[in-house]
C-alpha cells in the first residue's frame, strides 16, 4: 500500500448543563419547538449574553483530563454569518484564545496504544434547527437548540486511516462521558464528529489537500465515510486529478460523500472579540477545585485494574470502557470477595452478553453487583457448578430474587456430600471395569472418562473436584 490516509477529527460535544451557554433557558431535548428559547436565545433587541459557569467548568474538566493547557484568559468571539436558525446573525465562539490548548488523547486499538495530539478545545453555542419538511414551501425554525453549550474539540491530523479515526472518536466519546461533561447521546446530536481527510504517498512529509466530511453521526458511518473519501481521493490522484479543498457531506443511504461547498465559497466570518462578554478569566483556585474533584481517568483505572486485580490488558480495557462498567466491576469484586479474575470473566461474559442482547446499559442491569457477587460466592464455595451458575444467572436476570433461594428452588445445588459422592463413585467403578483397567494400565484419559461417568450419574450435580478426589482415593 503506497497511500497513507491522514485524518483529523473535529468534535462538537454538547456540554451536560441544565441551562444554555449564554441564557437561563433549559437544554432538555425533545420539547415542543421554540418552548425552550428565551429572549436571549431568540435574540430580541437589547438582550445580552451571560456565560454559563457550569459549561466553563466542564471545559476546564475536559482540558485537565487530556492534559491540555487551560488558558487563564480566553476570549469569546463572534462568528458572523446570516442563517435563519442563527438568531443573532452571529455565533458566540472562541477564536484566537480558546479555553483549552493542546493536550492528548490515548486510545487502544488492536492491542496497541495510540496517542493523538489535540489542537484545542473551545466553548461555543449551538444554532437552532431549520425544519424543511411539513411547511409547504416554507421553512420552520426551532430555536430550542439555539444557545446550547458546545465544546468543540479539534485533533491534530495524527490519525492514520478510518480505524484509527474511529478508535480516537470512541475513546473521546468514552472520556467525555467518563468525566461527566457530555451525555454522549449521538442520536440526539450530543456528540457530533466531522473528519478532515487527506491522502499522501507513504513517506511523504507534506500533508495532502484535505476535505472536511460532515454528518458523521455514528461510528459506523464515520468509518465508512472516511474509507469512501480516502478511496475517492486516491483514485482521483492516481488518475492524475487534484483534490480540491472542500466540505463534503456523507450520505449513509448511498454510502458516499458529495461536495457541499468548496473553499472558494467559504464565508468570511469576520471574527472579532464579543464586546458583550468580558475576557474569560480563570482562577488557579477554580482549576485546583476541578482537578481535586476529577474522577480517576480511564487510562489510570485500566492500569490499576491490571496491577491490582491481575487482569489482562484486554480484560482491563473491557472493564474500563465506561465509568459505570468500571464502578460495577469494583463493586462486584468488593461485595463478592472472590477471585477478581472470576468477576472479570462473569462481567465480560454472561453479564455483557445479556446486556448486549437486550441493548441495556450496565447502569440499568437487572442483576446488580451484590446479586452477582452472591452467585459468584456460591460458585467459589462449590455450592453450584459453573454450568448451573449460568442457569441461576438467567433466572436472576429475568425474575430477580435471592441466589440461594433460586439454587434450591431450581434444584441446582451441587452434590458435595461425601457419602453421596462415594456411593456414586462405587457404582461407577463397579459398572466400568474396562475403564478401571485402562487407568491401571497407565491411560490417564480413562480417569477423565470416569469423572465424566460420575457427573453423568449425578445429572451434573456432583462436585467434580470431590468426585475426582474420591475416584483417585478408591483407585489407589
Amino acid at each position, binding site marked *: 500500500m503506497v497511500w497513507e490516509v491522514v485524518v483529523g477529527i473535529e468534535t462538537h460535544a454538547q456540554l451536560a448543563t441544565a441551562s444554555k451557554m449564554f441564557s437561563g433557558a433549559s437544554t432538555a431535548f425533545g420539547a415542543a419547538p421554540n418552548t425552550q428559547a428565551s*429572549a436571549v436565545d*431568540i*435574540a*430580541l*433587541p*437589547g*438582550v*445580552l*449574553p*451571560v*456565560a454559563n459557569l457550569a459549561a466553563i467548568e466542564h471545559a476546564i474538566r475536559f482540558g485537565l483530563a487530556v492534559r491540555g493547557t487551560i488558558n487563564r484568559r480566553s476570549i469569546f468571539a*463572534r462568528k*458572523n454569518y*446570516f442563517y*435563519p436558525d442563527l*438568531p*443573532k*446573525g*452571529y455565533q458566540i465562539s472562541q477564536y484566537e484564545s480558546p479555553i483549552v490548548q493542546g493536550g492528548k488523547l490515548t486510545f487502544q486499538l488492536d492491542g496497541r496504544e495510540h496517542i493523538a495530539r489535540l489542537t484545542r478545545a473551545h466553548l461555543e453555542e449551538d444554532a437552532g434547527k431549520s425544519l424543511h419538511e411539513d411547511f409547504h414551501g416554507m421553512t420552520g*425554525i426551532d430555536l430550542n437548540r439555539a444557545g446550547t453549550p458546545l465544546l468543540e474539540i479539534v485533533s491534530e491530523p495524527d490519525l492514520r486511516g478510518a480505524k484509527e479515526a474511529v478508535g480516537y472518536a470512541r475513546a473521546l466519546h468514552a472520556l467525555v462521558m467518563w468525566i461527566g461533561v457530555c451525555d454522549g447521546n449521538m442520536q440526539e446530536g450530543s456528540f457530533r464528529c466531522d473528519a478532515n481527510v487527506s491522502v499522501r504517498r507513504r513517506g511523504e512529509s507534506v500533508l495532502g489537500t484535505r476535505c472536511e466530511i460532515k454528518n458523521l453521526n455514528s461510528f459506523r458511518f464515520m468509518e465508512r465515510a472516511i474509507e469512501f473519501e480516502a478511496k475517492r481521493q486516491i483514485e482521483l490522484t492516481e488518475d492524475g486529478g487534484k483534490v480540491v479543498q472542500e466540505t463534503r457531506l456523507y450520505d449513509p443511504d448511498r454510502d458516499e460523500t458529495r461536495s457541499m461547498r468548496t473553499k472558494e465559497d467559504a464565508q*468570511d466570518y*469576520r*471574527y*472579532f472579540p*464579543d*464586546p*458583550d*462578554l*468580558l475576557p474569560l478569566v480563570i482562577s488557579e483556585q477554580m482549576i485546583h477545585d476541578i482537578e481535586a474533584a476529577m474522577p480517576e481517568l480511564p487510562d489510570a483505572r485500566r492500569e490499576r485494574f491490571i496491577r491490582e486485580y491481575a487482569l489482562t490488558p484486554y480484560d482491563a480495557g473491557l472493564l474500563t470502557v465506561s465509568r459505570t462498567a468500571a464502578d460495577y466491576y469494583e463493586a462486584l469484586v468488593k461485595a463478592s470477595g472472590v477471585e477478581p479474575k472470576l468477576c472479570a470473566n462473569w462481567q465480560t461474559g454472561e453479564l455483557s452478553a445479556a446486556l448486549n442482547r437486550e441493548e441495556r446499559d450496565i447502569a440499568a442491569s437487572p442483576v446488580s453487583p451484590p446479586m452477582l457477587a452472591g452467585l459468584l460466592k456460591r460458585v467459589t464455595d462449590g455450592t453450584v457448578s459453573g454450568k448451573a451458575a449460568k442457569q441461576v444467572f438467567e433466572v436472576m436476570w429475568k425474575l430477580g430474587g435471592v441466589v440461594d433461594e433460586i439454587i434450591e428452588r431450581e434444584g441446582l445445588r451441587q452434590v458435595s456430600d461425601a457419602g453421596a459422592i462415594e456411593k456414586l463413585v462405587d457404582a461407577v467403578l463397579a459398572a466400568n471395569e474396562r475403564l478401571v483397567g485402562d487407568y491401571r494400565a497407565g491411560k490417564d484419559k480413562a480417569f477423565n472418562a470416569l469423572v465424566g461417568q460420575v457427573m453423568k450419574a449425578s445429572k451434573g450435580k456432583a462436585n467434580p473436584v470431590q468426585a475426582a478426589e474420591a475416584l483417585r482415593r478408591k483407585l489407589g
Partner: protein
Amino acid sequence: MLDATLAELSAALAAKRVSSVELTGAFLDRVRKLNPDLNAFITVDRERSLAQARAADAKRAHGDAGPLTGIPVALKDIYCTKGQRTTCGSRMLEHFISPYDAHVVEQLERAGAVALGKCNMDEFAMGSSNENSYFGPVRNPWDRRRVPGGSSGGSAAAVAARMAPAATGTDTGGSVRQPAAFSGVCGLRPTYGLVSRYGLIAFASSLDQAGPIARSAADLALLLNVMAGFDARDSTSLDRPKEDYTENLEMRMGGLRIGLPAEYFGEGIEPGVRMAVEAAVAWFEAQGARRVELELSRTKLAVPAYYVIAPAEASSNLARFDGVRYGYRAKEYSDLVDMYCRTRAEAFGAEVKQRILVGTYVLSHGYYDAYYLQAQKVRRLIAQDFSLAFEKCDVILGPTAPTTAFEIGAKAGDPVQMYLGDIFTIPAALAGLPALSIPCGFDEKGLPVGLQLMGEHFSEATLLGAAHRYQQATEWHKRIPKETPL
C-alpha cells in the same frame, strides 16, 4: 410646575400639593401641544402613563415613596418597554412590541417614576442631529430650523421644551452630551458599566452607556441614583457598592484641579462656544480651582478610531434584524437571500446602511488588522493618555461640541463634517470615562453652549458636584427656550 426641578416636584408630591396623575396629565398636555411641531416623541400612550401615575399615587399613599415616585420621565425609544412599541427610530422596528422591560426601565418603575412616552432619536442611535430618524427630524426648541443634536435628540428637546422634567438617553460617542449641549439642558454619560445595558437596543456594545438628561446637575444625580447599579444580566455591568450621587453636590471647590487640554480650545471651535466655555473656566478659577494645562495629543485620532470600532460592532449587532423572527420583513422576495436583502434595504435608513457597510469592511479578512486592531490600539492609547492626565487634574473642562446647533440639512450631505462634530465627546466614550454637559452660556445667535466636564472612572459624584456648584452661581440652565414659552 412644568418648570420645576425634580427636587421641587418631589417636595410638591410629598406635600400633596399635586398628585402624580395631575402632574403627569400636565406634562402630557404639554406634549400634546408641542409635539406636532417639535416631533420629540415617537410614541405617547396617555392611558399607560396615567395608570402608572395612579400606581405612583397609591404607592405614596402607602407611605413607600422615594424621591422619584410619581415623577414623569421620558424614555429614549431605544429602551425596551414591555407591551409597548420600541422603534429605535427605525422602520425596522416600527411595529415592534417589546415583551420585556430594559433594566433601567425596571429600576425607574421600581422607584415609582412614570414613563411619559418614547422619545425620538437617530435610527439605532446613529447620528448627531436626529435627522436620521425614520419618524422625521426633531426640532430644536431654541430655534425650530435647527437640530436638537443626536442621537438622543428627542429626549433633550423634550426636557428643554418642558415636555418632560427629565429623560433617559444613551451615549455611544456623545449621544447624551451633545444633544444636551445643543438643546441647553444637562446630560450625563456615566462610567462604562455603571448602568446596565440590558434592554437597550445595542449600537456599539463596548461604547453604549445609558445616561440621564435633565435640567440641572442635582436632577441628574437623583436620576443616576436610580439608574446605576449592578445587573447580572449584563456581563459588562460592574458589581460595586451603590453610591448616593446627591451627597457630594455641595462639594468644596478650593483646590479642585481643572485640566484644560489645548486640543479642546484649538482650531475649529466657534468663537461663541469658546467665549462661553472660557468664562466658565474663569468662574471655576475664581472659586479656588487650580488650572492645569494639558495636552491630549491623540484627540484627533479619536474620531477615526471611533468610526472604525462603532460601525464594526454595529454591523454585527444589527445582523439580528433579518426579517426572520420579528420586525420588518419585505413584502415580496424570491428566496432567502433576497428576503434578507430586501428587508434590510427597505427598513434601514442610509446612515445605518453606511455604517453597516463600513463595519463589515473593517472586520473583513485582510482589513481587520489594518483597521479594527489599529483602532483598538488607538483606543487604548487614548485611555492611557486620560489616565496620565488624571494624575495631574481632577476634572477636565472643555466644550461639549465645537459648534452650537446647526440648521436642519446643513451637514446632511457631508458625513465627515458631521462626524468631526463629535470630536470632544468621543474620547471619553472610547476610554469609558464619565462625562457630563451643562449649559454655560449662549452664542451670538442665542443658541445654548455646552460645557463638558470629564473625570476618572467612577468620578460621577465629583463631576456632578462641580456642575452643581456652577449651577448654584449661574442661571444658564434655567432659561426657557423662547420658541416654547410656558
